């Protein structure tokens, strides 16, 4: 488990847990955290693949580097590092530039 259980400076609260789906698999997340944080907490580091089949993770976690793009509820190119995870959300790895949705 990668969640920090105790910390010398920060209060570790117990937020409400919610369920979301990663590649169809049900995972637990904390309400108020980003999709990226929830995935890393669940041991998932590979967020997608580049067009040339390189595994892709994220780099900046503040919405700037655009390496964290994922398919969320069927929509491609969602910045998983600044998008809050929601109950029942379907998150999938994105390959390349993803599908354009209207």
């Amino acid at each position: 488990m990668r969640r920090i259980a105790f910390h010398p400076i920060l209060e570790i609260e117990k937020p409400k847990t919610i369920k979301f789906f990663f590649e169809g698999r049900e995972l637990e997340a904390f309400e108020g955290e980003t999709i990226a944080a929830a995935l890393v907490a669940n041991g998932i580091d590979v967020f997608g693949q580049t067009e040339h089949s390189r595994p892709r993770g994220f780099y900046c976690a503040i919405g700037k580097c655009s390496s964290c793009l994922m398919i969320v509820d069927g929509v491609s190119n969602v910045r998983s590092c600044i998008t809050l995870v929601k109950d029942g959300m379907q998150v999938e790895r994105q390959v390349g530039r993803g599908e354009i949705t209207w």
Partner: protein
Amino acid sequence: MVKTDFLIIGGGPAGLSAAIETSKRGLKTLIVDEGVELGGQLVKQTHKFFGHEGFYASVRGFEIAKRLISQLNENVTIMNQTTVTGIYEDIITAYDRENDLIVEIEPKYILISVGASERFIPFENNHLPGIYGAGAVQTLMNQFKVLPGKRVLMVGSGNIGLIVSYQLLQAGAQVKAIVEITEKVGGYQVHAAKVKRLGVPILLRHTIVKAIGDEKVEGAVIAQVDEKFNVIPGTERELAVDVICIAVGLVPSIELAQMAGVKIEYIPELGGFVPFRDREMRTNIKNIFVAGDLAGIEEATTAMIEGKIVGVAVARDLTGIDLQEDLEKMQKELVEFRSGPFSDKVRKGLERFFPQSAHSYSKDAQQDLGPTGKLRPIIECFENIPCNPCQTSCPSGAITVPGNINSLPLIDYSKCTGCGICAMKCPGLAIFMVQENHQPGRDLIVLPYEFLPLPEKGQKVIALDREGREVGQAEIVKVVKSSNKTHLVHLSVPAGLAQVVRSFRIPQKSDSIVCRCEEITVEEIERAIDEGYTDYEELRRYLRIGMGPCGGRTCRVITLSILARKTKKSIQEIGCGTFRPPSMPVKFDSIVKGEIDNEK
């Protein structure tokens, strides 16, 4: 269409400080921010800030964010999770991610305080998941309390690399090394000292050569470099790490400023391409201001001052009230903050925009170490950085930071009462207390400590020097808990080590095996006893201790002594337990064969 007096793009330290100034003067202020909460990068800073009380010195970054937000009033509107996508001549567009729509904003004045993004560097396999910017690791561990890995390589020894390394240790990760390509640590000496005394090696003239792994980081190759920063062949070595953290600087996010028509200049001292601005942080466009890292990579404290300047200037322009005095006060504040040697670069860069002035500061360092035998602070702060909580927190006026805030602190030991408040307040954790011969043959050392678990009185620990090397055994004499989470740990060390010991390590009980067959540790036995298994036979059944092939020959006595110590019973009372055959493991086959043989 949203109309507002003042639009602030980016609600970090600069944006929030500006909003406080305009909102308290009655101006309708709109903060648009991309993140899930306001505060910018402050929300993930767990260290105490340098500076002075007026700008939250000795307060931790995430607490500063809360304090700034609490000063916003009803004139402020906040749009979170919203990204400004365009600055046009007549309108600003912003994408609201929650509602999935573009909002149009029409402001009278604009502050662009969008900060910076993390610099990336090319090396083999640098695409692998597990390679993060240092800020990303901070976001994960300090904002969301998730650790992306256990063993980390830090690339870069600037303040961010040093601070994040320290915070990784606090969160329970290991930092295998900090590599620094130049011949000198980039950040403050006090930050470097914090990680060094915990045993983290800072490898100068070293760089990362490649990341190892297929799907994600499984290791890293580092190597030494020559004066031209080329890798010296044959010096490569592998580190087993699961996270590589890149802390090689920040790049100002100039996109919006440039598209708005702000003049952009290339000034490496400020971080690369930066927008033009004057002393009031106004760009070449009358109603557009910039502040914070976008205006030049610096610190959150200067970002707050810059933001305040913008807020006051905008309030003056829009209300017509004379605020010259407030403005000049803040400008003077900036000049003073930037007069130290670490701001040489920034001043040189800003010289391109307007003439720079700097106050002189004192380089005189404390010479004597005070009267031997008296409990007193030793201040190990030898660089001119803008900081003075040691002075302002001292109740007896014994410490002074003369004149300029960048001066080195001096202490008058005749006034010092040895209270230890300075050691607890110092943001650099650079103040230690010592007392030679507090007991015959023992010196006392008081260390600021920000880790868990806190040691207990009477506990034996391993004393470490400034480089994190073991120098002897120490005993915890007292632990003074502090509400600011910098606790003071009193250590008794062998005499002569008062000026040597600067850190300690708690021996890991989990590494001490009692039962070699079943791999049971001291800690596991103690925990089981605490849970109520206070009888040797119970412990055997619960932990399987003594039930391995050796039949308890190795562990029985140790287990009994742990039980005796914890339950305060004598070993005689506890007893030796029950022995049953076979006294040594015997194959069933041998038993069966033997039975057949015996029947003959």
